[in-house]
């Protein structure tokens, strides 16, 4: 167990193991995404009330779910860096921020496009939508704050504190549709009790959610690999890698 944590702190080990993982996970993710997209666009029946516009659910919900999960990853990594000063946690935090920002952007933009035919408006200052916008600003804030520091150790600490303070926003996003009942509909998939979504729509949606989790993992690992190299530019293993001329 401890030797695993010891290895986790070793950049060359993490670099090579993530390369092996990606060699498998990346193709699987791409195939799952392609199957999920084709299924949701071509093979599902339209919603009886919203018609075909509901198809946006298959990208909107997975992006939003994983954008939230990504925030946990970022905040937990930030906390680990604050408490145990693990460098790899700092790398993970910085790497998660850009992927999370991209997914939150997808959730917001697809939500706006979905809102137009469904609600008659691109945007409302609804609690769910506003709290998701704050999530985007938190992600962008972490990226901007990180780049603002020359001293990366101080940057890591400041960003970790920002991440943890921003955690306040997470339960607000979850509960917003119940606390302030406005345009955004409540959750259709429930872990406890029956989901209010037909299985013919549930299965492609679940596939897309799993695909987006895999996508997040792939992007996180790829970002971490780039970050590991840049931080280790003066170490012998990175120099050896650069001189070998291999891009793998």
């Amino acid at each position: 167990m401890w030797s695993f944590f010891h290895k986790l702190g070793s950049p060359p080990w993490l670099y090579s193991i993530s390369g092996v993982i990606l060699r498998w996970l990346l193709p699987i993710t791409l195939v799952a995404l392609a199957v999920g997209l084709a299924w949701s666009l071509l093979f599902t029946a339209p919603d009886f009330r919203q018609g075909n516009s509901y198809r946006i659910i298959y990208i909107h919900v997975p992006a939003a779910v994983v954008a939230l999960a990504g925030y946990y990853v970022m905040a937990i990594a930030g906390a680990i860096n604050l408490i145990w000063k693990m460098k790899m946690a700092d790398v993970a935090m910085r790497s998660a921020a850009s992927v999370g920002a991209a997914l939150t952007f997808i959730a917001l933009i697809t939500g706006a496009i979905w809102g137009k035919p469904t609600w008659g408006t691109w945007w409302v200052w609804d609690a769910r939508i506003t709290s998701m916008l704050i999530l985007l600003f938190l992600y962008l804030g972490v990226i901007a704050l990180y780049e603002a520091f020359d001293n990366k150790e101080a940057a890591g600490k400041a960003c970790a504190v920002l991440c943890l303070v921003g955690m306040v926003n997470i339960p607000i996003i979850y509960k917003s549709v119940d606390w302030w009942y406005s345009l955004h509909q409540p959750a259709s998939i429930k872990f406890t009790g029956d989901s209010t979504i037909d299985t013919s729509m549930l299965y492609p949606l679940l596939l897309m959610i799993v695909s987006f989790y895999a996508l997040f993992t792939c992007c996180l690992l790829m970002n971490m690999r780039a970050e590991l190299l840049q931080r280790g530019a003066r170490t012998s293993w990175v120099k050896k890698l650069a001189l070998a001329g291999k891009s793998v």
Partner: protein
Amino acid sequence: MYFDSFNALLTMDGHGAFVWSAYLITTLVIAAILVAPGRRRKKFLRQLAGELKRSRGGPNSSKEEA
């Protein structure tokens, strides 16, 4: 397949523009976040390799290495 014709798939009963633009934007963003880290990593490795080769070839290379 749900749709009867290619045209029905494109228009989606008037919702086509919304659905297709949402899917297109999502695909573009996903492609960007998948491609960007690999490019950044390869560019960095190329640059570092160039710097290392230059410094090795230079007259004071042994001092710099130490």
